[in-house]
C-alpha cells in the first residue's frame, strides 16, 4: 500500500530535449489514476520512470513516503502490465505467474497457493499448463494481470493494457479492472489514450501533452471544466466545438459572443463578472456537441442556423456536422432527428455550460463552475 509522489520529475534526452518536464503529482494510497494523452505525450515514459525502467533526469519520486528516485525496479515492489503483455514465451502460464514470486525467494508451497488463488480470480485455472503462444489475446491479458496480482505489489502500473483487445473484450476488461481495483484496494496508474477508459475507470485523470501535465482531477470535473482547448477537444467524441469569436458588451448590460454578422450567442448573466475583463477582445467559444439541441425545450436556449454537411446515425443518437457561418460544428442530437444533407436547420444552444478560451494561449478564461 503506498502513495506515489512525483516532485518536479523530468526526463531529458541529449541534455536539452525533454520528453517529460516538471511533473508534480501526488497519487493517494489506493487511488486509481489515469494518465491520458495522445501518443508521444510522455505518459508511458512517466509510468516507466515510476517503475524504475527509465532513469529520472531530475526531480524526486517518492513511493510510500520513501525516496525511490534511484532505486532499482526490483526493489520498488511495483507491478507493471505492459501493452504487449510481455509474457515470457518460453514459460507456461503457471511459470509466468510464479516467476516474480520465485525471484523473491517465496517457497514452493506458498507459490502454489498464490498462483492458484490468482488463477481462480482471473479464470486461468484451466490454462496453467499452456504456453502464451497457445492463448488468445484476452487470455494473455489475464495472465499479464495475474502476474502482477500474484506478487501483491504496492502499486499497479498499467501501460495501455487494453489497447490490443477487440472492442467487446475491452469493455469487459474495463469493468473487470475496476472490480479488481475495488477488491485489491491498491494504488493503480493506468496509461491510455482512450477517453472512454479515462472517463469511466479512474478516480482521477491526468491529462498530458508534450511531456507536461496539463490538468488533473476527477473525470467529470475535468470534463466540465477543461483547463485549455486541448483538454476540451481531447476528452470527448465528437470533440468540443471551438469557434473563433468576439466578446462584446451589448446595450442594457448584456454580453454576447459574436461569431459572425448573423450569429451571436448571449452570455448567461452568471458568467458576466468572470468575462468582464475580456469584453472587446477576440475569444474562442467552446460549446460541447451535447449542449446543442434540435428542440427548444428551454426558453434560454439560443437558436442558430446550421447547414447540414454530414449526419452519422449511430442508432442511439445522431451526430450532425454542419456549417455555422464559415466554421464546422458537431452536434449530438436525438436519433429521430434526421435532416437531409444540404438542409438548413435551426438548432438551439444551451449557453450555460459554455467556455471561453484565450485565442493566443488556448487557456480557459476562468468562470465559476456550474
Amino acid at each position, binding site marked *: 500500500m503506498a502513495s506515489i509522489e512525483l516532485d518536479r520529475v523530468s526526463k531529458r534526452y541529449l541534455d536539452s530535449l525533454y520528453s517529460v518536464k516538471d511533473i508534480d503529482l501526488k497519487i493517494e494510497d489506493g487511488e486509481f489514476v489515469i494518465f491520458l494523452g495522445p501518443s508521444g505525450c510522455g505518459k508511458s515514459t512517466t509510468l*516507466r520512470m515510476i*517503475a*524504475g*525502467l527509465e532513469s529520472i533526469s531530475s526531480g524526486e519520486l517518492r513511493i510510500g513516503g520513501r525516496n525511490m528516485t534511484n532505486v*532499482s*525496479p*526490483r526493489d*520498488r515492489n*511495483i*507491478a*507493471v502490465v*505492459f*501493452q*504487449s*503483455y*510481455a*509474457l*515470457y*514465451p*518460453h514459460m507456461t502460464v503457471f511459470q509466468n505467474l510464479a*516467476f*516474480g514470486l520465485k*525471484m*523473491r525467494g517465496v517457497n514452493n508451497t506458498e507459490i502454489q497457493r498464490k498462483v492458484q488463488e490468482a488463477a481462480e480470480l482471473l479464470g486461468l485455472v484451466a490454462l496453467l499448463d499452456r504456453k*502464451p*503462444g497457445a492463448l488468445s*489475446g484476452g487470455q*494473455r491479458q489475464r495472465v499479464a494481470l495475474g*502476474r502482477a496480482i500474484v*506478487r501483491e505489489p504496492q502499486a499497479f502500473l498499467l501501460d495501455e493494457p487494453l489497447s*490490443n483487445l477487440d472492442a467487446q473484450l475491452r469493455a469487459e476488461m474495463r469493468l473487470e479492472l475496476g472490480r479488481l481495483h475495488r477488491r485489491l484496494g491498491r494504488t493503480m496508474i493506468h496509461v491510455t489514450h482512450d477517453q472512454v477508459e479515462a472517463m469511466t475507470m479512474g478516480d482521477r485523470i491526468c491529462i498530458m501533452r508534450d511531456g507536461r501535465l496539463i490538468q488533473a482531477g476527477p473525470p467529470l470535473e475535468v470534463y466540465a471544466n477543461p483547463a485549455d482547448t486541448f483538454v476540451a477537444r481531447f476528452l470527448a467524441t465528437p470533440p468540443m466545438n471551438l469557434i473563433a469569436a468576439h466578446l462584446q458588451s451589448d446595450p442594457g448590460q448584456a454580453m454576447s459572443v459574436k461569431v459572425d454578422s448573423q450569429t451571436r450567442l448571449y452570455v448567461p448573466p452568471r458568467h458576466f463578472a468572470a468575462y468582464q475583463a475580456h469584453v472587446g477582445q477576440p475569444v474562442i467559444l467552446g460549446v460541447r456537441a451535447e449542449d446543442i439541441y434540435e428542440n427548444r425545450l428551454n426558453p434560454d436556449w439560443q437558436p442558430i442556423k446550421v447547414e447540414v454537411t454530414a449526419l452519422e446515425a449511430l442508432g442511439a443518437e445522431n451526430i450532425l456536422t454542419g456549417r455555422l457561418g464559415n466554421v464546422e460544428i458537431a452536434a449530438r442530437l436525438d436519433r429521430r432527428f434526421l435532416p437531409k444533407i444540404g438542409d438548413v436547420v435551426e438548432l438551439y444552444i444551451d449557453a450555460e455550460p459554455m467556455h471561453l478560451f484565450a485565442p493566443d494561449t488556448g487557456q480557459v478564461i476562468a468562470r465559476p463552475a456550474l
Partner: protein
Amino acid sequence: MRKKTGLHIGLILACALIILPPLWALRTSFVPESMSYSTELMPSFTLDNYRQLFERNNFLLFYRNSLIVAVCSVLLAMPFATATGYAFARFRTGGATARFVVLATQMLPPVALVLPAFALLRGAGLSNSLTGLIIVYAALNLPFLTWILMGFFEGIPVDLEWAAMTDGTTAWGAFWRVVLPISLPGLAAAAVLGFILAWNEFLFALVLSGPGTATIPVALAALQTSNGIQIGKVSAGVVMAILPLIIGSVFIQRFIVKGLTFGSVK
C-alpha cells in the same frame, strides 16, 4: 500455361546447375579412379577411394582437426558474440561507430589479415597448432556472429526484460533467465553458421597449419599432386566434407523457422 512451363524449365535448369556438381562428385567418389572421366553414368562401383583416403592420406586426422577447430572456435566466439550483440542491441555501447567498425572488419580481404595473424601466432608459439587456428577462427567469425545476434536480440521486445526486472530480477537476471532462453533458436542458428564458416575456411588454414594440424580444405588441396589431381579421392573427400554441412543446414532450417515464428508476444 506455356509461361508456367517455361518458368519450370528455367527453375529445373537452375537447380541442376547447383545440384549436379555435388552429384557428380558423389558418383565419382564411388567409381574407380581410372574410370572417373568415363561417359557412363556408373561404370563400376568401389569404395577404394574412401579406403585410400582414410588409410593412405590420413584423412581421419584432418577430419578430426576440422571438427575440433570448427566446434571450439564457435564455442569460444559465441559468448563474446552474444554479449557484444546484446550490448549493441540494447544499449548505446560504442554508438554507430562501433557497429560500423565491427561490420567493416568483414570487408577486409582475408589475405591482408593472414600474414599478421601468422606473425602473431608465431610470436605466441602457436603456429602449426590447432589452438592457434581456433583463436584465429573465433576472431574472424566474431564480427559476423555479433552482427547476426544483434539483429536477433533487437527483435526481442524490451518489455520482456522490463517485466522480468519489475518481477524482481536484476538486469543480468533478465538477460539470463528470459532473453537467453528465448534466443536459443537464434543462438543455435548463429552457431551453425559459424561452424560452417570455420569448416570451409581454406586460406588461413593453409598458412597457419602444419602437416599434423591441417584441416579438410587443406588436405583436399594437397591431393592436387605433381601426378595430377587424384579426382576419385578428391571426390570422396568432398563428399565427406559436405556431410556435416548437410546435417547443419537441416538444423539451421528448423531453428531459423522457429526463430521467425517466435514473435508471438502480442
